[in-house]
C-alpha cells in the first residue's frame, strides 16, 4: 500500500532534520511510541502501541535509517510484529526549505499482515495519514524549540490544539 503526503513545518530545515534523527525527539513524536533505543548507528529497537479501529496492540520491531543526507533526505525502514499482526514499511522523506519554513514530502510503502490486514485494511490509509499528521504536528513543536531547550509537551489536548490552530492557519491565511 502506498502512503504519501506533504507537510509544511513552521521551522528551519536544519533544525527539523536534527529533530528527525534524534531518537529522543522521535520517541516523543511518534504516536504510541513507548521505546526507541539505538542499537547501532542509525538502528533502533522500538515498541509502539498502535491500532486501527478496534484492532489494537503492541508492536515490537526495528527502525533503520538509510541514505541519510542532512539536511535534505533520509529513508526510514520499519519492521514490527505484534499481537494484531505485523507491519513492514519503508519511506523516503525529502525536506525543502522555503522562507524559513520546511516542506517535508514523504512517500512510502506499507505492508501489514494478520488481523490488521483482514479487518482494518480499509482504514489503514486513513489511520496512517492521521498518525503522520500527529507526528508532524509534534515534530513541528519540537523543531520550534532550540537544541538543548526543554522539550514541548505532546499530550492529547496539546496535539489537538496544534491541529486545530494548524487548520485555522490553513483556512484563514
Amino acid at each position, binding site marked *: 500500500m502506498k502512503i504519501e503526503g506533504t507537510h509544511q513545518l513552521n521551522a528551519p530545515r536544519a533544525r527539523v532534520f536534527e529533530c528527525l534523527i534524534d531518537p529522543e525527539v522521535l520517541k516523543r513524536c511518534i504516536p504510541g511510541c513507548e521505546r526507541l533505543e539505538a542499537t547501532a548507528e542509525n538502528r533502533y529497537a522500538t515498541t509502539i502501541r498502535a491500532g486501527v479501529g478496534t484492532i489494537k496492540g503492541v508492536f515490537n520491531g526495528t527502525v533503520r535509517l538509510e541514505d541519510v543526507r542532512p539536511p535534505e533526505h533520509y529513508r526510514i525502514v520499519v519492521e514490527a510484529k505484534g499481537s494484531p499482526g505485523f507491519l513492514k514499511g519503508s519511506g523516503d522523506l525529502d525536506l525543502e526549505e522555503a522562507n524559513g519554513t520546511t516542506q517535508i514530502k514523504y512517500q512510502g510503502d506499507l505492508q501489514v499482515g*494478520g488481523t490488521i490486514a483482514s479487518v482494518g485494511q480499509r482504514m489503514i490509509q486513513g489511520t496512517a495519514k492521521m498518525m503522520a499528521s500527529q507526528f508532524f504536528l509534534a515534530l513541528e513543536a519540537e523543531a520550534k524549540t532550540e537544541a538543548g531547550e526543554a522539550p514541548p509537551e505532546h499530550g492529547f489536548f496539546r496535539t489537538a490544539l496544534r491541529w486545530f490552530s494548524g487548520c485555522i492557519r490553513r483556512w484563514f491565511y
Partner: protein
Amino acid sequence: MASKYVGQRIKRTEDPRLIKGLAHYVDDIRLPNMLHVAFVRSVYPHARINSIDASEALKLPGVVAVYTGKDVAGIGPVPCAGALPDLKVPNYRVLAQDKVFFVGHPVAAIVAIDPYVARDAVDLVMVDYEDLPAVVDVEEAAKGGTVIHENFDDNIAYKLTAGEGDIDAALASADRVIKQRIVHQRLAPIAMEPRGVLARYFPGEGDLTVWSSTQIPHLLRTQLALMIGIPENKLRVITPEVGGGFGSKLNVYAEEALLGWIAMQLNKPVKWIEGRRENIQGTIHGRGQIGYIEIGCKNDGTLTGLRYNVFADLGAYHQLLTPAIPTLTGLMLSGAYKIPAIQINVTACFTNKMATDAYRGAGRPEATYVVERALDLVAAELGIDAAEVRRKNFPAATEFPFHTATGLEYDSGDYAAALNKAQSIINYQQLREEQEQARAAGRLMGIGISTYVEICALGPSNAMPAGGWESATVRIEPTGKVTVLTGASPHGQGQETSFAQIAADELGVDLNDVTVIHGDTGVVQYGIGTFGSRATAVGGTAVLVAIQKLKEKANKIAAHMLQCETSVLNFESGKFTREAAQAAVAGESTPVVPVGEAPAGALPEPETNGRSHITIQDVALAAHLAKELPPDTEPGLSATYFFEPKNFTFPFGTHIAVVEVDRETGDVKFLRYVAVDDCGKVINPMLVDGQIHGGIVQSIGQALFEEVVYDEQGQLVTGSLMDYAVPKASQVPWMELDRTETPSPVNPLGVKGVGEAGTIGATPAIVGAIVDALAPLGVRHLDMPVKPEAIWKLIRGQ
C-alpha cells in the same frame, strides 16, 4: 401410497424450537469441568517458523496447556478423498510444523478455563516467523516461481483433460468461435453458525464423544478414528443442531481431530467455537477458478463444441474434496444443451490461501456459469435472442436418457417446458418490448436467462469417494410411535419434516407420531450425510424402501392376527383390513393374541377379537409382545435399508432476472425475478421454495457482492463481515417461483434434489441481465462480483 402429507406445504416441525431459541447447537452444550480451546493462527501467508515461545501464555492464570506442531505429530494428517491420477497430496498436519502456508493456518492450540483467557493467551504466544514469498495468483502459480511444498517440483497439484468428441474438428467446423476469459471468484460459505467442536473422553470406558457442527457425522467418525488412532467403535460423533453448512461442513478439519485428542490428553471436556474471523480464514472457501472459454457455433446458433481451459485455485492444502471440485465442473459442461464435442483442461494449483472445497453447488455453479455465459455470448455474437439460442440447442424431452459429451446420462428432462413456463410467467415478448422502450428512453434495462441443469442425488458409489448410498432404519415402537433413523444429516433442509411426511403417508399414521432422528453415530446406523442435494433423493428413498420392508413383515403379522392370508389383506390409512369375503369366514375365529401378562405390565393387549381390521399400531404392539407371531418371525418391528442409486439425478430449470442499472451510480436494481425449477416429484413445496430462495440469495451474493480477497502479499483482506459482503434482505428481490415436474426414474420417489439449484441457476441469469442492460454500450461480459464501481467506470468509458 395415499398422499395425505406428501406434496403438501407442511410447516417445518423443526422450526418452533429454532424460533423459540430452544434448540441446541454445539455451543449450547455445556459439560462440567469443560475447558476451552483457542488457536494461534498464522498471520503470514507463507513463512518458516523459527521458534514458538509459549512461556508467557502458560504463565497467564487459567491457561492449562499449549500444544504446538511437535506435540501433535502423532495425529494423522487431515484427509483428502480425491482419487485422481498423479494427484499431489501435501502432508496436511493438524498444526503447522516448520512452515505456515496460509493466513489462518493453525500454529498452536491453547487450552484454558474459559474462552476469554484462551483468547488472551493467543496474543502471548510469540511465534518467530521468517517471511517467505507468497504464491497468490493461480495463473502465476501454474507458471512456476516459488514452489509452496518443497517435496514437489511445482505448484500444479494435478492436470486433467476430459471430454468426448473431436474438439479441434468441432471448433474448426464452426462458423464462429467465441472466446472469453471468465473468473469465478473465491467465496466464503458464511454459515450463520460457524464451526464448533466439543469433545469428551471417558478414560475408564475408553469412549470418546465428539460433538461437531458437521454435515457428515459418520464419515467424520471414521476419519477422526483414523487420525486420532482410536477404534471407530469407541468414538461417537454427535451432530446437534447445525446452523448451516453449504458444504463448508462437508469436511474433516484439523480442529475436530485436535479437540478429540486434547480431550484424551487432559481427560476433560474441551470446546472450541469458531469466531467469524477464523471462519473466513480457516473454513473452506468455494469456487476460485479462472477459465478460458472457446465455444463454436453455426450461424443459426447450433453449438458445435466447447473447450474450457481452467486454472483451479486449490489453496495451500487439500481438504476432503478439494481436488474433486473442478472435476464436477468438467462433468457439467454440457449444461442443458446438445454439444457434440466438449473438452475441459484443468490445471489445479496450490496457492498460499485457505483450501477451496465444496460450497453450495460445488463445481456445478462454475460449469453452469461457463455454459450460460457462453450461450449469451453466442446469442450476442449472432444477434439471436438469448432464449431462442437456448431453445435451439435443448435435447427434446423424448431424447432422454440423454448422453452428453462429458460422459453423463441425464435421467429425465423437459427443458423447453421450464423455459416456456418462465417466459410465459414473465410475459417475455412484452418484456422485450418494454426493454426497447426503456432503451429508447435512455434507461439501462436488462434481461438475463439461465436454463440450467445440475447433477444431484450424489450418487452411485462407483462415482463417489466414500460410498454414494444412504441408509434408513424405520421402527414402530410398542406404543405405535414411528421412529425414523436416517444416515443423512439434515442441517436446515427440513428432512425431519419431509421424511416424516413420507413415513406418515406410507404407514398411514399421524405426522406428529413420526420422529426423525439423525446426526448421532451412537444411535443411527452408518450413513453418508447431507450434501450434493442428495438427502431426499437417496436418503428419502432409503426411508421409503425400509418402510416397505417393514410393511411386509407387518402384513404377515396382521394376517396372522386376523387369521387370513396376506393376499387378502388390504393396507390403507394405517389399517389392515380383510377383504369382505374372507372376513365373513374368519368371523368365527378365536382371538389370535391370547390374554396373558403383558411384559411391561401396563401395555394393553391388541384387541382383534371379532374385528375385521387392525391398525399398524396393534401390529407393532403384537410384534413387541411376541406372544403369538407367525412361525419363524422375529419379534420387533423395524427394518433397515441401504439405498444405492444407479445414477445421479439431473434437476433443471429456467431463471429469468430483470434488472435496471443506474447510470449515475452503477447500482443494480432488480425489477423482477422468475424461477421455474424442476426437481422431480416434490415432497414438500414449502421446503423446496425455501431451498430455492436461499440459493438465489447466495447467487445474488456471488453475482453482485461477495469476494474473498487476498492482497498481492497473500494477506486476507476480506477478513470480517465488514469487508466480506453477504447480501442483506433489502438487496433481495421478490422471487416469483414456479415449477415443472419431471419425475426421476432413478429412485422410486421420483425426486431429484433441490438444495443447490438456486446457487447454480441464478448467478448466470443475474450477470446475464446486467450484461444485457449494458449491451448498448458494447458490453459482452463482466466478471463477478459485478460491483457498481466497475459498472460506473464502464458507463463513463474508463
